[in-house]
C-alpha cells in the first residue's frame, strides 16, 4: 500500500478547534498500515457528536477563582494559596479491576527505578498493575516512531501534540489507537466526572476523523504563548511600575534608562518572540480581503524588526544574548544583569521564585501587560494550543480493558488538592513527603520516585496556579492573567494540527528567514537583509506554501476561528 504517497498527496492532520465555531478538522486521509483508511475530514456535526460534555468540577474550591475573558472563550487558571489540609476523595473505591498494562510517557529527568515504592502505592490505589516505561523526553520524537513503525505500541502512550506530524498521529489514530467515542461522547463522559471537567477545547485536540482518540493531559483555557517579564523588585526600586510602560517607545526609553554597561547591567535579554506581538503580528497567517497573508509579508512585521534592530544596535541588549547564549538567560535575570526578557509563562512558578531569592532576597518576577507598539488601540495576543499533550490507548485493547483504563484516567484527572491528586503528585505521606507548615514537601525518596513525573502524562486535571510556600507568585501570576484575559484572540487555523508534505513543511518552518531574523534582532543584519531573505523564501517555496494552505486548508475547512 503506497501509504507514503497517499499521505503526502492528501492533508494529513486533525485540525481541531476549541471554542465555539467548530470547523471541520482535517483528518489524515491515509496513513498507518492497515489499508482500511477512510479519507476525509472531521465534519462540523461529526465532531460535535464525538466531543464529550463539559461538567465543571467543584470538589476543591479555588482561593482565586478563574476569570472569564468573555467572547474569546478564555478563562484564567484558578489560583490556590494553600494546599488543602484534608484532601477530599473524588473517586469512590478502586477504579481498576486488576488488569496488567504497559504505559510509555516522556520524562525530562532521571528515570526512577522500576517497581519502586511509589509505583507500588499507585498500583494499589488504581487497582491495576502498571508497568511504567518513562522514555527520555529529549529524544521522545525519535523513540516513538520506531514503536509505531514496528506496530508495537504500549497499552497507553503519551504523544505530545507539537510532534503530531513526526508521529503521524492522524494515521496512527486510524490504525493503532483506540476510538474512545463510544465511551466518552456527549453525556457518556459523565460516568467519569473528573474527565468531564476537562474543557471542551482540550478534547478537540484529540479528535481525528469525527472520532475521539486523545485524552488531554495538560489543558488550560488560558493558552498564552508567553510574555515580556521584568525584575519587578529592581524596577520598582527605581520608581518604575509596569503600568507606566505602555508602548514600544516607553520600552526603548527603559533600555536607555536601565542599561549600565560599565556596571555589567543591560536592560534587555531577548524579547523579540513575545514583544513583537505588540506590533499586531499574527501567529503565522492572517486574512486580508479573504486572502491568506503570511506574517512575513506584513509591513508591521518589518516595523517590529526595525525596532528590535535599533534596540540591539543601541547596546541595550545583553552581549551574551547577542552571542546566542540562551541557557544562561535565567542566571542573568536572577543576578540582575538583565532586567527585562521574554519567555514562556511556565517560568512563573515556585522553582523560579526559589532560584531568584537564592540570588537576591528581594527577587520578584513581573510581566508587562500585553500592549500595542503605538500605545493606542486594543492590545491583542493570539492563543496557543489548548492542550499540548495527549495520551492514547492501544487499539488492540478489549472494550472492558478500555473501560478499566478510562476509570483509571478519571482517577488521574482528579482535581488539584484532592486525595487522588495528592497521591499522584506527592506520593504517600511519611514516605514520599511530609507536611512542612502545611505544605507537602518531598522526602529524598519522593524526589527520586515521585518528582520524576510519569502518571500526569497519562491524564491530569486542567491546569491551576499553585505555588505552596510562594503565595506572592500565585497572587502576581493570577492577577496578571486576569488583567490580560480579554486580550486573547483565536488566531487563524487555531488548534488545527496541520501536517504537511515535506517540501511544504520546509517552507512553513522558514529556517533561512528565521535565522536572518535572529541576526537582525541581534543587530547583525539589517531589515533589508531580512527582506531579501523573505523574497528568496517566497520564490523558493513560500508562495507554494500559501497556495497549498489556501487550497487544502482555508478553502476546504475554513479559518478555525
Amino acid at each position, binding site marked *: 500500500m503506497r501509504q*507514503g504517497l497517499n*499521505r503526502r498527496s492528501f492533508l494529513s492532520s486533525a485540525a481541531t478547534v476549541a471554542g465555539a465555531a467548530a470547523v471541520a478538522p482535517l483528518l489524515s486521509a491515509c496513513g498507518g498500515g492497515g489499508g482500511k483508511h477512510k479519507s476525509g475530514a472531521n465534519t462540523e456535526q461529526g465532531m460535535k457528536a464525538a466531543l464529550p460534555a463539559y461538567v465543571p468540577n467543584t470538589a476543591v474550591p479555588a482561593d482565586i477563582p478563574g476569570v472569564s475573558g468573555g467572547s474569546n472563550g478564555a478563562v484564567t487558571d484558578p489560583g490556590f494559596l494553600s494546599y488543602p489540609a484534608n484532601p477530599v476523595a473524588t473517586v469512590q473505591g478502586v477504579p481498576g479491576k486488576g488488569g496488567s498494562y504497559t504505559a510509555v510517557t516522556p520524562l525530562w529527568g532521571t528515570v526512577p527505578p522500576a517497581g519502586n515504592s511509589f509505583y507500588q502505592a499507585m498500583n494499589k490505589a488504581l487497582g491495576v498493575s502498571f508497568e511504567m516505561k518513562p522514555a527520555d523526553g529529549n529524544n521522545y520524537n525519535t523513540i516513538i516512531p520506531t514503536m509505531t513503525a514496528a506496530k508495537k505500541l504500549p497499552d497507553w502512550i503519551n504523544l505530545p501534540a507539537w510532534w503530531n506530524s513526526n508521529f503521524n498521529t492522524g494515521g496512527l489514530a486510524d490504525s493503532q489507537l483506540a476510538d474512545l467515542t463510544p465511551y466518552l461522547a456527549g453525556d457518556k463522559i459523565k460516568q467519569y466526572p473528573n474527565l468531564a471537567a476537562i474543557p471542551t477545547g482540550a478534547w478537540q485536540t484529540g479528535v481525528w476523523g469525527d472520532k475521539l482518540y486523545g485524552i488531554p493531559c495538560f489543558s488550560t483555557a488560558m493558552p498564552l504563548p508567553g510574555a515580556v517579564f521584568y525584575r519587578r523588585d529592581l524596577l520598582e526600586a527605581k520608581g518604575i511600575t509596569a503600568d507606566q510602560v505602555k508602548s514600544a517607545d516607553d520600552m526603548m526609553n527603559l533600555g536607555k534608562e536601565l542599561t549600565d554597561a560599565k556596571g555589567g547591567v543591560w536592560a534587555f535579554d531577548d524579547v523579540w518572540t513575545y514583544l513583537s506581538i505588540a506590533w499586531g503580528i499574527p501567529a503565522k497567517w492572517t486574512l486580508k480581503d479573504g486572502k491568506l497573508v503570511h506574517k512575513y509579508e506584513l509591513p508591521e512585521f518589518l516595523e517590529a524588526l526595525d525596532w528590535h534592530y535599533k534596540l540591539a544596535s543601541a547596546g541595550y541588549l545583553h552581549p551574551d544574548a547577542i*552571542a546566542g547564549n540562551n541557557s544562561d538567560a535565567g542566571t542573568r535575570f536572577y543576578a540582575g544583569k538583565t532586567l527585562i526578557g521574554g519567555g514562556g509563562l511556565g517560568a512563573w512558578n515556585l522553582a523560579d521564585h526559589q532560584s531568584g531569592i537564592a540570588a537576591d532576597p528581594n527577587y520578584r518576577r513581573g510581566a508587562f501587560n500585553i500592549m500595542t507598539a503605538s500605545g493606542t488601540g486594543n492590545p491583542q495576543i493570539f492563543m496557543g494550543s489548548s492542550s499540548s499533550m495527549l495520551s492514547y490507548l492501544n487499539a488492540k485493547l478489549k472494550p472492558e480493558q478500555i473501560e478499566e483504563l478510562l476509570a483509571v484516567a478519571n482517577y488521574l484527572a482528579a482535581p488539584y488538592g484532592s486525595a487522588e491528586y495528592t497521591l499522584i503528585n506527592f506520593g504517600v505521606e511519611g514516605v514520599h513527603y511530609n507536611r512542612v507548615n502545611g505544605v507537602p514537601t518531598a522526602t529524598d525518596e519522593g524526589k527520586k520516585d515521585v518528582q520524576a513525573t510519569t502518571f500526569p502524562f497519562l491524564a491530569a486535571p486542567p491546569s491551576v496556579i499553585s505555588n505552596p510556600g510562594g503565595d506572592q507568585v500565585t497572587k502576581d501570576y493570577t492577577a496578571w492573567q486576569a488583567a490580560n484575559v480579554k486580550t486573547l484572540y483565536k488566531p487563524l487555523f487555531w488548534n488545527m494540527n496541520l501536517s504537511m508534505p515535506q517540501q511544504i513543511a520546509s517552507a512553513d518552518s522558514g529556517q533561512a528567514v528565521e535565522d536572518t531574523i535572529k541576526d537582525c534582532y541581534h543587530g*547583525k543584519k539589517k531589515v533589508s537583509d531580512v527582506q531579501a531573505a523573505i523574497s*528568496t523564501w517566497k520564490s523558493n517555496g513560500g508562495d507554494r506554501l500559501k497556495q497549498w494552505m489556501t487550497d487544502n486548508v482555508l478553502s476546504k475547512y475554513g479559518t478555525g476561528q
Partner: protein
Amino acid sequence: MSAARSERGGTGKSLTWRTRLRRDKSLLLMTVPAVVLLLVFNYAPLFGLVTAFQYYDPLDGVRNSEWAGLAQFQQLFNDPLFWGALKNTLWLSLVQLVLFFPVPIALALLLNTVLSERLRNFIQSVVYLPHFFSWVLAITIFQQMLGGAGVLNHFLRQHDMQPWDITTNPHTFALLITSQAVWKEAGWGIIVFLAALAAINTDLYEAAAADGAGRWRRMWHITLPGLRGVIVLMLVLRLGNALSVGFEQFLIQREAVGHETADVLDTFSFYYGIANGNYSFGAAAGLFKSVISLLLIWGANKLAHVFGEDGLYRK
C-alpha cells in the same frame, strides 16, 4: 624500499592462499572484531544513503517512502545557503590547515628539546588537558574572557575604552575558531609526532654532532626527515577531512556570528535537513560531502605516492 617490496611480492606469489591463511590465521582472527564493528556501524548504514533519493518519512520507513530521484540534489544545488556553507567549510579548512596544522609539529619539536623529563611530562599534561573539555566548556571560557560581557570588555569599559567584542564578530570568526581549536586540540595533536620523534635513532644525532652539525642542521637533516612520513600521513588525512571542520563548535557559535558566517556543511545538513524533519535533504547534503571527501583523500594519497611517501598505505 623497492627491494623490500619485490621481496614481499615474491613470497606472496609463491604461497597459495591456503598456506597464507594458515600462516596469518591468528592475525586475521584478531582483526575480526574490528572488521565486524566496521561492517555494522560504517558499512551497513551506507544503505541508508538511499534516503537521499527519496522523500523519506521515518514512519513509512525506507521501503515505503516515495521515490524522489535527483530532486533533493536539484534543490540542494539551487540553494544559495548550501553554496555559502560549502564556501565557509573550504575557507575555514584552509585557514585551519595553514594556522593549525603546523602548531602540533612545532610544539612536539619544542617539547623534544626539553631535557628534564619531569618538566616535559608536566608541560605535556597541561597542553593535553583542554582536549578533554567539551566544546561547550571551551567556548564558554572564550566567551567569559573575550565576549561582550567578558573579562576583557569589562576591563575596557571600566577604563573608558571602546569595548571590543571578539566572539560576535563575523569578520574574524575564522581566526577565533582556529585559536579555539589550537587551544583545545593542539596539545593532543602532538602525541603522534612525539611518537615519531621517539622512533628516530639517537645514534644519528650523535654521529651528526661528532661531524660538527649544529642544532639547526640536526633538525633539518635528521629530525624533519624522520617526521616526514607521519607529517604526510596526517596531511593526507587532514585533506580527506577538509569538509569536516567540526560540528559542535559551529553549532554553539552559530547565533553569535550569524548563520551566514558559521554554517558549514555539517550544520547545514542539521539545520535545513534533520531539524526540519527534512531527512532526505540532509542526507543529500551529507552524500555530496562524502563523495567530495572521497575524491580529496584519493587525490591526496595519489600525491603522496608521487612524492615517494607511503600516504595511507604502501603502494
